[in-house]
């Protein structure tokens, strides 16, 4: 199962040239992070941005394992959680001894925590890849999560351990009480971590990780010990997961067993995969999507879990390369300047597909609210769950939408072929 990574050929060849454009991307990203809260200033978006930032670091760290080294982990939350706990304890200690240590340093403590744990258990865990590793990580995950409920003095049992981020020494008058300040703290660390992790992929170690992912056996015959390589990867993943955990601890001012649990591990796996493990930036997209779904869906529907599930199934089935995979598919077309020829077919397809989606939503909500018999408000149109007209509408949308959509999807495929051929002829496509 070591090759269980999206087989979508990783043409992840970031131009070695174009250094300017390369630094440009990072600068733009940084700028974006700075202005974001000014653009969307509502309290809600601040909270989401903070959570997304944390999720991004976490997902990227996970991809060091899955995407770069081909290690499928079911227990990545362990490093995240331990990082969180360590951070909380650190904050409390700093506060009580009022050491002159400002809050922004704390995530590093978390990181060290995560790394230390990886250092500790990593060697035995990474002996093998594939299913064995996956299952050990599952075991360790559950083990640590449950133990955290027993070692009450360290983990505080069910209720966890709380802290007060404002009790540390202020930095340039920043107390980090207000969310905005926390946001910038997180944003800072997102930048630092993302750059660091990207850099890592460009190092000899990073490259050998890829080699180990593709063919660990062969790696042994070019002088490397795959075990050591995996161990390194595992530690770096731990480091950044820990940083993410530390930030979470700062954001929530609490750490509890849930940090370490299977749910967290599952979510990060989702985020990474959905985003696309074959590209560095994939997990970033995944993290954004997953976090938004988590926060957003619950507001609009009571059966959010169902949509959650459906969306993931859909992405896995129709975009196995993740969102990044889809986007990158268009890269050669853009280069070849043939993208324009496919766009129309997209627009055409969008309509029936949307109808189909709406139909499904309507159907689900109808069932969900049937007993209540209350009103579903879809695009401002009120539907009564118990009204046959509503069911009819749903049925029409689903069936009709599907039939039409199928045709338009074929259109896309054809348009694609044409565009791709041209691209191939112009030599932008292997």
């Amino acid at each position, binding site marked *: 199962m070591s090759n269980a990574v999206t087989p979508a050929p990783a043409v992840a060849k970031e131009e070695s040239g174009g250094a300017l454009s390369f630094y440009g991307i990072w600068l733009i990203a940084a700028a974006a992070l700075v202005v974001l809260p000014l653009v969307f200033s509502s309290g809600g978006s601040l909270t989401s941005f903070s959570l997304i930032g944390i999720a991004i670091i976490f997902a990227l760290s996970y991809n060091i394992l899955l995407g770069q080294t081909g290690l499928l982990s079911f227990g990545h939350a362990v490093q995240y959680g331990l990082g969180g706990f360590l951070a909380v304890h650190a904050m409390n200690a700093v506060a009580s001894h009022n050491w002159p240590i400002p809050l922004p340093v704390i995530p590093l403590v978390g990181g060290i925590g995560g790394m230390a744990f990886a250092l500790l258990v990593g060697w035995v865990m990474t002996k093998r890849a594939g299913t064995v590793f996956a299952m050990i990580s599952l075991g360790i995950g559950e083990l640590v999560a449950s133990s955290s409920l027993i070692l009450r003095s360290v983990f505080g*049992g*069910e*209720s*966890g351990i709380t802290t007060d981020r404002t009790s540390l020494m202020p930095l340039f008058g920043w107390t980090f*009480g*207000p969310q905005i300040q926390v946001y910038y703290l997180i944003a800072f660390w997102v930048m630092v971590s993302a750059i660091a992790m990207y850099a890592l992929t460009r190092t000899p170690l990073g490259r050998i990780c890829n080699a180990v992912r593709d063919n660990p056996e062969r790696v042994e015959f070019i002088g490397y010990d795959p075990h050591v390589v995996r161990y390194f990867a595992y530690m770096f993943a731990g480091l950044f997961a820990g940083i993410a955990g530390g930030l979470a601890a700062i954001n929530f001012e609490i750490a*509890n067993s849930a940090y370490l649990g299977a749910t967290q591990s599952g979510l990060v796996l989702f985020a990474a995969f959905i985003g696309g493990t074959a590209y560095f930036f994939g997990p970033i997209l995944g993290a954004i999507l997953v976090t938004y779904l988590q*926060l957003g869906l*619950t507001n609009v529907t*009571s059966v959010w879990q169902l949509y959650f599930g459906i969306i993931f199934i859909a992405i896995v089935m129709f975009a196995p390369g993740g969102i990044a995979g889809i986007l990158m598919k268009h890269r050669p077309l853009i280069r070849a300047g043939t993208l324009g020829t496919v766009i129309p077919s997209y627009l055409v397809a969008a309509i029936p597909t949307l109808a189909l989606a709406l139909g499904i939503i309507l159907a689900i909500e109808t069932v969900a609210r049937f007993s209540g018999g209350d009103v579903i408000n879809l695009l401002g149109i009120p539907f009564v769950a118990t009204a046959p007209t509503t069911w009819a509408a749903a049925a029409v949308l689903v069936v009709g939408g599907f039939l039409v959509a199928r045709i338009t999807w074929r259109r896309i495929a054809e348009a694609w072929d044409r565009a791709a051929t041209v691209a191939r002829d112009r030599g932008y496509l292997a």
Partner: protein
Amino acid sequence: QESIKIGYIDPLSGGGASVGEGGLKTFQYLADELNAKGGILGHKVEIVPLDNKTNPQESLVQAQKAVDAGIHYITQGNGSSVGAALEDFVTKHNSRNPGKEVLYFNYAAVDPSMTNEKCSYWHFRWDANSDIKMEALTNYMKGQPSIKKVYLINMDYSFGQSVRTSARKMLGEKRPDIQVVGDELHPMLKVTDFSPYIAKIKASGADTVVTGNWGQDFALLLKAAADAGLKVNWYTYYAGGAGGPTAIKQTGLDHQVFQISEGIPNSGNKAAMDFEKDFRAKTGISVWYPRAVNEMRMFKAAAEKANSIDPVKVAAALEGMKFEVFDGGDGFMRKDDHQFFQPIIISSFGTLADKAKEPFDEENTGWGWHPVSRIDTDQTMLPTTCNMKRP
């Protein structure tokens, strides 16, 4: 008039879902009731369900969401673990965001610490905390000579632990002759099959079990007892919850399961019983949380007294407020720790002698709750260690 939003932060998925759903129905019913009578100072009341999966950290995410959505009142009950986190949250939030205060109305998280060392000015609790309940429960048990061997089984978290410790302590004081033959803590909302625990209880030769288990952890516990045919007396906090009554009936423990609560369907109080009837008709469940009724009605009263829905003013008004509780009798919100005091009832579950006086059964078992002892408000007073920090 924009409406008053109350964030209901409780489990709507996972192990606590069944309990959380019950609570949600209750509050939505109560909101409708208030709105039918013109709402609060003309504002409609709206319950906003926020699923916290019985997880403190998730609860904070939800609480933050609530705040971001401009909500100033949150209510929660299922789990002191969560309760503690929320109490901490409102305290911090209110001190950091003056003018954006949030009040936390607690209807069931009964870990005593929340109104003692951890107490907060922004937290109000309408449920008697677990020490108060245990005090009353042990007072009753004191009078039961049949009790000789007691077995304690509780969920492994702050509430369960406080039940177990206070039980040991109080029984020790009041009935030194009673022998505690077992003291179990099991993982919270994770156990699928309790038969191993039942086997243990059985082996211990206990004649009485004291437990604070709730939700599926109670239902499953009794289901297992039923299967093994364990026949003992049960002194419980939450036997009335979903699944409990069914399991009790299956075991055939006629009036051997006791529950301590601030009210029961067959209270004998006309108003309350009419309410119960209508409530059951509309929601399909029985009133598990009379305290929730008190909470909402008292919220209205306080807002009107303060003639404002500004949380700060409401909080001030609530402090020390006297209030006639749902099924008669007077209660009041103690200023020192924001713990509400009210009459408490110990009831037993079984066949109902007089269907006219006691019309309500549970989960169509034909059995219902019958009061065996009633403790008046002043008897329930316990001192508090809280030194309240007022803004």
